[in-house]
């Protein structure tokens, strides 16, 4: 190779693709402000890899709105492996913006919920008993509120004002998927271009308008309020766990966002590319977004 050729190849290697992935009309370009506050909440987290024949990608990105104001990312994700049973446990949570420390609420909920599932798997449970999983996560929020406020008698209402969060949890063993949710963070199975809704309330209420109040932890109606489902993950299909920051623009998967995601997730992207895809720019959609994607066994 000539010196000039070597220089060109070096230049190509270090060139970055700048700017966000755009789907439809882009959102405004803004200068993101670092979020201050405790605990440290990075703008973006990304994870992924293989375990037990499953392939997983996970990311949580701060929305433009919070990047603009300097607020913390209020979504969170967690992945946990249970080696004895060969199970991947995954959770996403969306802190309720009206609650003052809901970023911490989301972070605690995903960690405590996945730990609670793992404990049931230790006991060789064939089916996850979801009620205690959500109650355990809810109790962690109450305990944290009591610790932080110094009010040992504080209950779910007081804790909800500071730490309220939705929660979606899945346990995946081979092609067997168990999933459960409190709130509007939904799960889908994507097969080709089809998004099959598994759990999580739709973004539009019965009135045909977006929203309608959100169920959240720690105050929820106990085991009866948990939406739970079990699915087989067919070869080539992908389990998607997300927050409404993605579910709203996804709009059931029939539009531009659905097509773009279906095309790009036909095979697992690199971890950082996955996060970049999730951080797509689209006018009026500026909430935090989280997505965990799980490809079943037999991915060629």
């Amino acid at each position, binding site marked *: 190779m000539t010196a000039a050729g070597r220089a060109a190849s070096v230049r190509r290697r270090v060139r970055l693709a700048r700017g966000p992935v755009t789907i439809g009309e882009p959102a405004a370009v803004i200068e993101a402000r670092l979020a201050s506050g405790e605990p440290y909440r990075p703008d973006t987290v990304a994870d992924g890899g293989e375990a037990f024949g499953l392939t997983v990608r996970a990311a949580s990105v701060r929305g433009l709105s919070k990047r603009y104001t300097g607020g913390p990312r209020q979504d969170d994700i967690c992945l946990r492996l249970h080696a004895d049973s060969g199970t991947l446990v995954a959770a996403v949570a969306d802190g309720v913006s009206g609650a003052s420390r809901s970023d911490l609420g989301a972070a605690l909920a995903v960690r405590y919920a996945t730990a609670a599932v793992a404990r049931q798997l230790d006991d060789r449970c064939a089916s996850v008993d979801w009620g205690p999983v959500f109650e355990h996560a809810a109790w962690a929020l109450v305990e944290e509120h009591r610790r932080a406020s110094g009010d040992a008698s504080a209950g779910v209402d007081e804790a909800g004002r500071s730490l309220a969060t939705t929660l979606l949890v899945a346990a995946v063993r081979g092609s067997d998927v168990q999933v459960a949710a409190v709130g509007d963070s939904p799960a889908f199975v994507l097969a080709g271009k089809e998004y099959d809704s598994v759990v999580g309330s739709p973004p539009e209420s019965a009135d045909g308008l977006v929203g309608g109040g959100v169920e959240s932890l720690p105050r929820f109606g106990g085991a009866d309020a948990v939406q739970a489902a079990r699915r087989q993950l067919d070869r080539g299909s992908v389990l998607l766990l997300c927050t409404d920051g993605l579910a*709203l623009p996804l*709009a059931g998967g029939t539009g531009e966002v659905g097509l773009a995601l279906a095309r790009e997730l036909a095979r697992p992207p690199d971890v950082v590319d996955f996060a970049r895809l999730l951080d797509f720019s689209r*006018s009026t959609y500026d909430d935090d977004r989280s997505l965990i994607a799980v490809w079943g066994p037999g991915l060629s």
Partner: protein
Amino acid sequence: MKIKLPTGVPEATGEVADPGSPEPIEPVIPPPVTAEPAAGEPTPAVVGQVLPMYFVGDESHSMAGEPIAAVNQGLIDLRDEVAKHPLIGKKVRFGIITFAESAQTRLELSELSEDLVLPTLSPRGRGTSYASALEALRHTIPADVALLKGNGYQVHRPSVFFLSDGLPTEKADKWQARLAELKDPEFRERPNILAFGVGEADPEVIGRLASSPRYGFMMTSGASTAGAIAEFAASMLNSMVASAERLDRGDHTIEFEKPEGFVQLDAPLV
């Protein structure tokens, strides 16, 4: 965005006070529209999400002078601030309906861009017809929601900021019947109504208008009406920004903090 003025309403003169009073125009009210697409029509592809917000303002003669000037300045500031914000301008749609003895749509639901020409409100007519304002909302809101949905928008529950300085001049059962229609749980697009009373407004009436007891506000007695209106307008702007920033949460409630110089009518008064 191009703004269509209703027939008969003079072209807005921007920020210069309009010296003349436009003749009151009876709005031509079309039959209520359902926001659902007709059977068999394809659902349009989703392009974005929007929050419709309406200012419903008293244009009766008692608002003459500083109060109406404060309203006009507040609307200009609102437009300029929202237009400057890089994110929420695209998410909010703003409309203006005024009322005196009749209601007029002075600004159809619009994007608040910096080149948006605002109407200049000026006192007109003899009466203060709450019924006409409430009826105009009942007809306008579903039509606006249907239009937005037809254009591919996901629509959040609309909000109304209602400002009056006086008592309704029609019989109570007339405006209360219109209010009941607007708040009817069967009315799918029923808005959140925040009601503000200044001057001679009746706290009991203002409390009734609000869609929740905590959404009714009355000017502190003895305060300046124009000053209270300026505070109201600033709070309307803050509410718009805060609500649009938290839009994706999809809550029914609207973000709002009590303006300076007002008391919250947070107990049922009737």
